[in-house]
């Protein structure tokens, strides 16, 4: 009881803090200097119209690499955590897997190829329009989730998926190192021809890095979803 009262007091105090933050915040009328320089530099020197992709893949590329590493560690640790316990009887199955039904099944047959295609579209257009590796990879993984819901007996080839994502990760780092050798620094995409602003083949190595990121995230999230079924 005491604990609940204390919790409510803590939440109330935090609410006061948040109210004061909101009250003191003034909406920006112009960009901060760093953001303004990104907005002007990204189309000029990286030739990518999508500033956010430019920041994610080039200016903050190291953060993205670390983030991908976190995803990789999660996918690896889930296998360890979800391993059946030794020496204990398996808990009785409380839920009988039921048939997903006609709608989900037909929906899967129509939607699954379309979702994968849309995911690929979002991945390869990351440097031109809203989208990119993470978003497209998540769409692909959502398609895989629909597949697993509609046909629960599907067995994903997790070994192949792991190999695919490791290869994508290695190529990602290699492209980064190529940036050191041929251009200004780690993950600098300007060692490939810049092309024309807005063209499909443009922005140096950004589309390549984005595609690798998409493949890696899609494979990784599919593995994560699959691990939870055991």
């Amino acid at each position: 009881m005491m604990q609940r009262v204390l919790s409510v007091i803590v939440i109330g105090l935090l609410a006061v803090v948040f109210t004061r933050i909101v009250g003191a915040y003034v909406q920006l009328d112009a960009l901060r200097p760093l953001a303004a320089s990104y907005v002007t530099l990204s189309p000029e020197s990286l030739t990518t119209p999508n500033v956010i992709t430019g920041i994610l893949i080039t200016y903050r590329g190291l953060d993205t690499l670390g983030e991908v590493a976190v995803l990789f560690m999660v996918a690896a640790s889930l296998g360890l955590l979800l391993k059946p316990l030794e020496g204990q009887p398996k808990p009785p199955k409380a839920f009988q897997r039921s048939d997903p039904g006609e709608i989900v099944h037909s929906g899967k047959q129509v939607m699954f190829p379309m979702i994968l295609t849309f995911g690929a579209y979002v991945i390869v257009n990351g440097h031109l329009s809203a989208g990119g590796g993470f978003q497209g990879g998540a769409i692909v993984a959502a398609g895989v989730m629909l597949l697993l819901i509609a046909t629960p007996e599907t067995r994903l080839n997790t070994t192949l998926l792991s190999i695919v994502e490791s290869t994508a990760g290695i190529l990602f780092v290699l492209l980064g190192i190529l940036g050191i050798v041929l251009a200004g620094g780690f993950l600098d995409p300007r060692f490939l021809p810049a092309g024309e602003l807005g063209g499909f083949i443009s922005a140096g190595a950004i589309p390549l890095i984005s595609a690798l990121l998409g493949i890696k995230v899609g494979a990784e999230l599919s593995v994560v979803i699959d691990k939870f079924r055991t």
Partner: protein
Amino acid sequence: MITFPVSTVMMVTGFGLILIGLAAILLHRNILRMIIGFSLMDSGIAIVLVSLGYVTGGTAPIMDADLAVAGAAQRVVDPIPSALTVTAIVIGLSVTAVMLAYAIRLYRSHGTLDIEAFRHSRA
């Protein structure tokens, strides 16, 4: 009639979600509900981050036919919080996955998801 700026509305929503999530974490005893609370806090923090980057009257920082490169810096919202939020969402998903895996493991070993049941266990 008082009109609020967009970023204030977004911030109130985000901070509200953070408070709801914190309340779920502190007041509930079921581990799954606490995990839902963490997810709500994640979403709230993402909304607050994005609202910090809003510039009055700004549009998305993607150059196209309607947004010329020349005057873009005066017309777009701050792209940095948006880029950081993509990172935050992915990390939030990873954390949720690990928490759910621990919940499954605790349920397998103890047969319950009540947080009180684990208070004195040092096994």
